[in-house]
């Protein structure tokens, strides 16, 4: 098994946010996790990255127990994340942000190669490489967050709501980029509210509801499922 979440429970104080979810991701897949606000999507990604600790169950990557590692070791295992709300380092330049993405690597040649590739994917970032990240537009910050996560040369890329607050035209280009990244063989776990776009991109999907997996299917099946549409627009999708 490549990446697996086994009976994952997460608690914040007295409140349990995840009530034992099971998710698996195969190498080379794009798996999307859907659900409304508060369903536990971000918590799921954060527990993969080791930023929250499970109260029960665990996260396994190629047999290794990620939940027993500190978060920086998870990055060294090859799992990076572009977090919800982008969380770029606002008072650092674009270039500094990208270089921090490669913090775990000492291979200068590799870093330069990856950086050139990211500038190819997002030419806007090259134009603005010496600008402070906080002065970028929302879409540019999203590109930077993804670029920064790619700088770690990951085996698995976790993307948390890359479409958040972006205009449709930008969402489209971001998603096309994700597809291109996946074509290079990188596994992607995508958390999204933008269900339709996410399902068109993904191979498989999970639907979370208040901390539980309520559906798991191929993306095509989920896209055709009226329950999914109901969950998003109160039964409007015909």
């Amino acid at each position, binding site marked *: 098994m490549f990446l697996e979440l086994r009976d994952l429970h997460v608690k914040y104080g007295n409140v349990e946010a995840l009530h034992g979810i099971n998710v698996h991701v195969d190498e080379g897949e794009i798996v999307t996790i859907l659900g409304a606000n508060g369903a536990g999507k971000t918590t799921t990604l954060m527990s993969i990255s080791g930023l929250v600790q499970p109260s029960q169950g665990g996260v396994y990557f190629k047999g290794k127990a990620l939940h027993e590692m500190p978060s920086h070791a998870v990055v060294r295992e090859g799992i990076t994340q572009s977090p919800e709300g982008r969380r770029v380092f606002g008072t650092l330049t674009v270039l500094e942000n990208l270089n921090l993405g490669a913090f775990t690597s000492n291979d200068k040649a590799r870093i330069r190669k990856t950086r050139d590739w990211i500038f190819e994917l997002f030419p806007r970032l090259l134009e603005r490489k010496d600008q402070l990240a906080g002065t970028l537009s929302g879409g540019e910050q999203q590109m930077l967050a993804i670029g920064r996560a790619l700088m770690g040369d990951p085996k698995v890329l976790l993307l948390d709501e890359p479409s958040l607050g972006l205009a449709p035209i930008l969402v489209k280009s971001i998603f096309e980029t994700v597809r291109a990244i996946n074509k290079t063989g990188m596994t992607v776990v995508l958390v999204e509210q*933008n269900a339709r776009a996410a399902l068109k991109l993904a191979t498989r999907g999970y639907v979370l509801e*208040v901390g539980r997996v309520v559906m798991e299917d191929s993306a095509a099946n989920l896209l055709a499922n009226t329950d999914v549409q109901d969950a998003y627009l*109160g039964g409007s999708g015909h």
Partner: protein
Amino acid sequence: MSLLALRNLTKTFGGLVAVNNVTFDVAEGAIVGLIGPNGAGKTTVFNLITGNYKPDSGDIFFDGRTIKGLPTHRIVQQGIARTFQTIRLFQNMSVIENALAGCHCRMQSGMLSAMLRTPAQRAEEQRALLRATRELEFVGLADEHANLAKNLSYGNQRLLEIARALATDPRFIILDEPAGGMNDQETAALIDTIRAIRDRGITVLLIEHDMSLVMKVCEKLVVLEYGALLAEGVPAAIKDDPRVIEAYLGADTDD
């Protein structure tokens, strides 16, 4: 007649326009839903109404008078109560004390009368206690009154926030994702509670992601996207509006 009127409301945070020239009305006695994708500026609109943020431009009228620039506690006193998206209870205090917090703005006694325990002060405490108890009964939390707020379940914490808001004796209540983190049974009960609030003569404005709840309970919907007004109307019309569908499910990337 509209109880709350927003006029050309704009708020920016360091270059980012969070709320952009928003105008809408909430009629007295209505249940209105404010919806839109994450990051659309819904909570910012709430924070502008309740005085947590000051608008850059535009105006807010409550019952015909402007409330722009008033401190939050004065706005509460005028009759606007709210709940918070991320639960903000007084976690280490008991359930009844949380409800009593709402009564505060309708009480008068101060430091001296408390030290002297005047009859008026004691009578007022009793009245407040009665009111707070009633509101706990209204949301179904009376049996939990001696519990600490932090020991309540997530759904009950949301209900306690509503009870606290109701104890301020509002004419208008703002609910920020009241069903967030609730299961299906709790959500169903919440729908009844929201209707009961309106039946008490209190106007309701709510933000909610659970679309089935919004469609069931709201009489009017206001849709925001990128901080601006996208659409406004009755739920039936809103859910067939292609612009809204696009904003929610996302654009068809193949188009």
